[in-house]
């Protein structure tokens, strides 16, 4: 190529918009960069959302990314690529959740206030233990509270982006997040 940007891996530095343009035209290398850039966050989100199951998370993340590859032509850029990808992984996770765990999702059912534990087991806990405790606490959250908390606090999406990803108004995002934060803080209080 006459004027290829410097370096063999120039796609790695390309913007999401540039990658989408190229991937939409069938450039697999651009799609591979999209996978490397956004896949880890999607997978991490799916694991925490799916009760810590790497197997389920791998399934929904793979399906979401393959679906993205097939349907990039329909991506109109109204939301960011990242938000669009999170929406895809969330939808597939919801589908899997519905099929495998047919328990009705009632956001109020599990929104009870949990009393903080009175014991004080450890001051210096290992990250893995804290993460285990966090997963346990997350597992008890209703679906939407868990999703909004993960997208906001772990993946750093804005309220508007979360609304796009979960197809809900920003006001609902705020409400779910508010309740989720309260329950998680109370659940985790025993680790003080």
């Amino acid at each position, binding site marked *: 190529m006459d004027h290829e940007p410097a370096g063999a891996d120039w796609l790695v530095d390309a913007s999401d918009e540039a990658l989408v343009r190229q991937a939409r035209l069938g450039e697999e290398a651009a799609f591979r960069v999209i996978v490397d850039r956004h896949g880890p966050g999607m997978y991490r989100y799916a694991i925490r959302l799916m009760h810590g199951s790497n197997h389920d998370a791998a399934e929904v993340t793979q399906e979401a990314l393959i679906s993205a590859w097939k349907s990039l032509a329909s991506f109109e850029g109204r939301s960011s690529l990242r938000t669009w990808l999170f929406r895809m992984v969330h939808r597939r996770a919801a589908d899997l959740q519905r099929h495998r765990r047919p328990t009705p999702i009632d956001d109020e059912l599990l929104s009870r206030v949990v009393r903080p534990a009175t014991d004080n087991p450890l001051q210096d806990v290992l990250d893995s233990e804290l993460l285990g405790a966090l997963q346990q606490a997350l597992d008890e959250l209703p679906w939407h509270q868990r999703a909004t908390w993960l997208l906001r606090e772990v993946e750093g999406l804005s309220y508007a982006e979360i609304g796009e990803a979960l197809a809900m108004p920003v006001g609902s995002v705020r409400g779910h*997040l508010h309740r989720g934060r309260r329950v998680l803080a109370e659940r*985790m209080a025993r680790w003080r």
Partner: protein
Amino acid sequence: MAVNEGPGREPVEPEDLDEVDPLDDELVAAGVGPLQRATRAARAEEPSGWSVLADDVKRRARTITRPDHPVLVRLDADGSRTVVSSRVLLAAVRRLLGSAPTHAPDDVVFRVDDERLLAVEVSLVAAFGVDLVTLAEDVRAQVLEEIGSIVTGEGTDAPPLTVDVAVVDVVDGDPRVL
């Protein structure tokens, strides 16, 4: 300027102020410290098995063929036909239009009727400051030459190929990476 700093808190930039939960103080009192630590650990977590999963996704993506059209390249006197997939033409145009920092392809559409290639519609993103009329003329000529070298139309009754060029966006820099 970061605000809302304090023990166990991340600085909050002013533009995020509308996203600070009003319960924060209450949560701190209720034991948000451990939650903050767990949240930081979760953010830093590199999920195990990702590299294997990523390889699987990339491998599967390679096996997925996109919709295409057969395009008649030439027709011999004995009736033998040579066709090429529109995917081959797309790859050629994509390579051609990705070789200069002045523009990048946004979309390429091949109009095909009964295997005859009638037109190529090219949408471009251009770099700010580029003469768009000259760019469109150059791209049209390049695409005609490139596609014409593949789809000779020899022996066929295909009409002359037309190339329509539309500049759909302008960016400040190299549009191949911006």
